[in-house]
C-alpha cells in the first residue's frame, strides 16, 4: 500500500501545484483585463470614493465640496443650490455639467503624478481632486435668483473687459444635492427642461433684442460717424410707429411709446421695429447683415472657457435670393436665427468695451490637491474687434439715451449707477409665446481704464418689457456693489 500512498500524495501535491498556476494565471496574465472590465464593481467604488475638489466663488465661499460618508464613499454637497447654473452638477450616475463638467479632470485630481497615484493606491487613500476658483459672485448669483422669482428664463452677468462671469442663472433649475432622486422628474418634461443651462445652451428667438445688432449694422453703413451720427440718430422718421407684419405677427412699438414722430434713437429706446425693418435693403444689404451676424458671433457657438456651448442651427444665408418676408423676419429677429443669452452678452460686452470682444470665463484659478497657492487659468489675451470703435461708441450712447427715455429700460436703474440698456420682446412657437429681453451694462470706468458690468436677461412667457429689466437691475446692483 505504501507505493499507492506515495502515488496519491504526489498526485495531491501536483493538484495543489495546478491551483498555484491557476492563481498566477488570473493575477499575472489575466489580471489587467479583468480589472479593466466595465462590470468590475471595484472601479465603480473607487470612482465613488474620489473626493472631488471644492468649487469656490470669487470671494472664497464654497459652492460645491465633497465629504466622506460613513461608508467611505464621497458625497457631493452644494451649499447654495441657486449657484447650480454655474457649478452644474456631479452625479456618479448621471455625469456632470457646468463647472463640474468643464473642469472635471482638475476636480477629480486626474493630473496627479504617477508617484502620488502609486502612494494613494498603496495606502488606500481615496483620490483627491484639485480646487477650482470660479469668477462667480455668490451675491450676484443670489440676487439674480431672487429677482427672477422662479420665472423661467436665463440671466448672465459679466465684468468687462476681464470677461469674468459674475453670475449665471437658468430657471427652472434643479437642486444638485438631490439630483439622483429628482432625475426622473427633471428629465420627463421636455418643455421646461430644468437640466438645460439656458445661458449657454438655451436657444431663443431674439426678436426686439436684435435691434441692437441692426442699429450697429445701420451705423456701420456710415463711414464717418463722428459727423453723421447725430443726423442718423436724431432725424425724425414719420413711419416709425407703423407696425410690421411678420409671419402673421404684428410687431409694434412697446407700450408707453409717445405718439410724436420718433427718431431712430427713440425708435430703438421704445423698441419700434419699423425703422430697422425699413433699413434692411435701404442702408443695410442682406449680405451685409449676414456678415454682421457672422462677425458678431451669432452663427457659431459662443466661447466660454471650458464650457459646453451651442451653435444656432444652420440657416440659409441672407442674400439677393432671400424672400422679402424672410428678410423682414431676419431684420426683426423673428426669422430662423436663434441665439443664446451668451451670444447677446458678447455683443453687449463689445459695445461696453469699445467694440472689442471679451474672453468670457467662469473659472480663473486652480489649486492642485494639497497645494496652498492658486495657479491662474490661462485666459486668451486676444480680444478681437467685433464692432468698429465709433459704432460701438454711438450704440453705447444710444443705449444711454434709451435708459433715460424708456420707462421699460429705466426699470433696471438702481441708485446712481450709469445705466446703458435696451429692452425687447420676441415671440416664438406656434402660440407666439412672448419673451422679455434686457441687454445692458453699467459703466465702471475708473480713469482711463474702461470697465463695465454687462448683463443679459431673458424671461420666458413674459410680455412685460420691463420684467427682464427689473431682474437686470438687481443683478447689476449686486455686481456693481455699493457706490465708492
Amino acid at each position, binding site marked *: *500500500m505504501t507505493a499507492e*500512498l*506515495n502515488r*496519491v500524495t504526489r498526485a495531491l501535491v501536483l493538484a495543489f501545484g495546478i*491551483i498555484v498556476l491557476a492563481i498566477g494565471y*488570473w493575477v499575472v496574465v489575466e489580471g489587467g483585463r479583468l480589472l479593466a472590465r466595465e*462590470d468590475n*464593481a471595484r472601479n465603480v467604488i473607487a470612482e465613488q470614493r474620489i473626493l472631488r475638489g471644492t468649487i469656490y466663488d470669487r470671494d472664497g465661499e464654497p459652492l460645491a465640496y465633497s465629504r466622506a460618508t460613513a461608508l467611505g464613499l464621497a458625497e457631493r454637497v452644494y451649499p447654495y443650490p441657486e449657484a447650480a447654473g454655474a457649478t452644474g452638477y456631479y452625479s456618479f450616475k448621471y455625469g456632470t455639467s457646468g463647472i463640474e463638467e468643464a473642469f472635471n479632470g482638475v476636480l477629480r485630481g486626474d493630473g496627479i503624478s504617477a508617484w502620488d497615484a502609486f502612494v494613494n493606491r498603496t495606502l*488606500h487613500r481615496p483620490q483627491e481632486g484639485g480646487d477650482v476658483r470660479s469668477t462667480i459672485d455668490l451675491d450676484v448669483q443670489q440676487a439674480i435668483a431672487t429677482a427672477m422669482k422662479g420665472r423661467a428664463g436665463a440671466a448672465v452677468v459679466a465684468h468687462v473687459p476681464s470677461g469674468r462671469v459674475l453670475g449665471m442663472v437658468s430657471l427652472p433649475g434643479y437642486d444638485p444635492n438631490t439630483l439622483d432622486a429628482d432625475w426622473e422628474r427633471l428629465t420627463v418634461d421636455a418643455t421646461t427642461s430644468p437640466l438645460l443651462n439656458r445661458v449657454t445652451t438655451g436657444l431663443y428667438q431674439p426678436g426686439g433684442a436684435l435691434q441692437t445688432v441692426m442699429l450697429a449694422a445701420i451705423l456701420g453703413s456710415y463711414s464717418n460717424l463722428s459727423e453723421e451720427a447725430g443726423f442718423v440718430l436724431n432725424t425724425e422718421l414719420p413711419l416709425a410707429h407703423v407696425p410690421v407684419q411678420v409671419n402673421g405677427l404684428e410687431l409694434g412699438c412697446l407700450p408707453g411709446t409717445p405718439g410724436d414722430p420718433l427718431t431712430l434713437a427713440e425708435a430703438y429706446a421704445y423698441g419700434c421695429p419699423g425703422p430697422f425693418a425699413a433699413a434692411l435693403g435701404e442702408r443695410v444689404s442682406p449680405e451685409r447683415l449676414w456678415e454682421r451676424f457672422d462677425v458678431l458671433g451669432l452663427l457659431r457657438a459662443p466661447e466660454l472657457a471650458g464650457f459646453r456651448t451651442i451653435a444656432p442651427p444652420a440657416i440659409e444665408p441672407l442674400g439677393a435670393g432671400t424672400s422679402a418676408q424672410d428678410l423682414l423676419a431676419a431684420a426683426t429677429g423673428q426669422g430662423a436665427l436663434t441665439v443664446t443669452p451668451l451670444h447677446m452678452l458678447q455683443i453687449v460686452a463689445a459695445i461696453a468695451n469699445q467694440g472689442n470682444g471679451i474672453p468670457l470665463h467662469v473659472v480663473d484659478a486652480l489649486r492642485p490637491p494639497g497645494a496652498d497657492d492658486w495657479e491662474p487659468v490661462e485666459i486668451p489675451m486676444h480680444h478681437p474687434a467685433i464692432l468698429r470703435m465709433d459704432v460701438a461708441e454711438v450704440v453705447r450712447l444710444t443705449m444711454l439715451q434709451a435708459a433715460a427715455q424708456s420707462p421699460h429700460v429705466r426699470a433696471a436703474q438702481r441708485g446712481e449707477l450709469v445705466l446703458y440698456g435696451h429692452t425687447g420682446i420676441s415671440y416664438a412657437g406656434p402660440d407666439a409665446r412672448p419673451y422679455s429681453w434686457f441687454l445692458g451694462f453699467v459703466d465702471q470706468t475708473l480713469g482711463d481704464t474702461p470697465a463695465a458690468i454687462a448683463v443679459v436677461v431673458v424671461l420666458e412667457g413674459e410680455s412685460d418689457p420691463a420684467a427682464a429689466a427689473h431682474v437686470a437691475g438687481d443683478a447689476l446692483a449686486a455686481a456693481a456693489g455699493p457706490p465708492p
Partner: protein
Amino acid sequence: MSTTTAEMAALDLDEMDEERIRPQARRERLLLALAGLFILLNQVTLIVARDRGWETLWPVGVWALCAAIGHSVLERRLPRRDPLFFPLAMFLTGWGLNLISRLVPGFADRQTLWLVIGLAALLALTILPGDLRWLRRYRYTWLIGGLALLGVTIVLGTNPSGFGPRLWLGFGRLYYQPSELLKILLVAFLASYFADHEPYMRLDSRRLGRWSVPAPAFLGPVLLMWGVSIVVLVWQRDLGTATLFFVVFMIMLYLASGQAALLLGGLGLLALAGLAAMQLFDVVALRVRVWLDPWSTADSDAYQIVQSLMAVAAGGLFGQGIGQGQPTIIPVVHSDFAFAAIAEEWGMLGALAVMAALAVIVVRGMRVAVETRQAFDRLLAAGLSVTLAVQSLLILAGVLKLVPLTGVTLPFVSYGGSSLLTMFVVTGLLLVLSNREKDAA
C-alpha cells in the same frame, strides 16, 4: 538506593524520548506563537482600517486561550504527536476568524464559539483510547447512526439563512450539518472495512480485459453503504459533498486494492454522473454552463464566479490589505468564496500561504499513513488526509474556474461551525494517529 539494569535502561530510553520530544514541543509552541502574532496583527489592522472598536479583539483572545490549552493538553496526552497539525489548524482557523470579522462581523462570535467546540472535540479524542478500536469495531453502527442523522435532516432540516437547501439541524442559535459528520464516519467505515479485507482484495481479484478488479464479494457491502450515503446526499441536493464522497471513496478503494483501473473507471463514472446530474438538476446544469462560459452572463448567473476572479486579480501579488479590498461584492463570500477574499486582501502570497498550510497538513497526514504499520491506521490517516485535500482542491479549483463550483467550504477558513468542528475532529484523529505511529516505532 540501587537501581537494576532494566530500570537504568528504561530511564535512558525515557531521557532519549524526552530529548526527542522537547524540540517538537518547542517547535509547536513557536509555530503557535507566530500564528498568534499574525492573527493579532491582522485583527489590529482591521480595527484601525475599518474604524472598529478595540473590543472586537476578543476572538483573538479566545483563539490564544484555545491555542494555549490545546498545546498544554496535547503535551500531556499525545507527547509524540506530529508538531505541525495543531499549529497549522489553529493558524488557518485564526485566519478564518480574521476573515469573518472582516466580512461578516456579526458572525464572528458564533465562529469563535465553534472554535471552542471544535477544540473540545479535538481534545476529547485524546482522552479516548488511542488505538481507536471504538471507531474501528463499531463501523456499521457509526455509519448507520450518521445516515440516520442525515435522514432526520431530510425531515427536520433547516437552513440558517432561511432559504436554500435544508442541510442543518438547529440547536438554539447553533446549527449543525450532519453530512459533515458523515465525512468522518464514512472514511472510518471504509478504512475499517478495507483494513479487514485488504489482503483478500489484493489476492482475490478478477480480470476485466487487461484490468484486474477486486472480487464483487468484497465490494458489495462497501458499495451498498457508500451508495446509500450518496443517494441521501443527492436527495438533499448536497452535490458538492456527494462529489467529495465519490472521489474519496475511489481513492481509498485504490489504496486498499492497488488497482489503478478502479481509479480510471471511477473517473469515467464521475463524468457519467456529472452528465446525468446536468439532466436531472438545474443547479448542476447552470454551474457547468457558468463554468464553461462565465463571461456572457457575468451580470447574472455567473456574477459570483466573475466577481471572484476579479477579486483574485485585484489582490495582485501582495493584496489590498485586510479591510481594504472589496470582497463583499461577491455574494456569500464568507462561505463559498473565502479563498477569493483572501486572495484580494492578502494577495497571491496570502493565497499561497493558505494553500501551503493545507498542503502541509495533507502531506503530513499521508506521511502518517505511510509510516504507520496498522492497515486501519494507514487507511484512516490517508482517508482523512485525502478528504481534507479533495475538499480544499474542489473549492480552490471552483473559485479559480478550473472546475464547476461545488459549494463545499474551505477547510478551517470558511464560515461554518459544522465544517470547522469536522476539521478539528479530522485534526484530532490525525494527531492521535501520528502519536500512535511514533509509539509503534
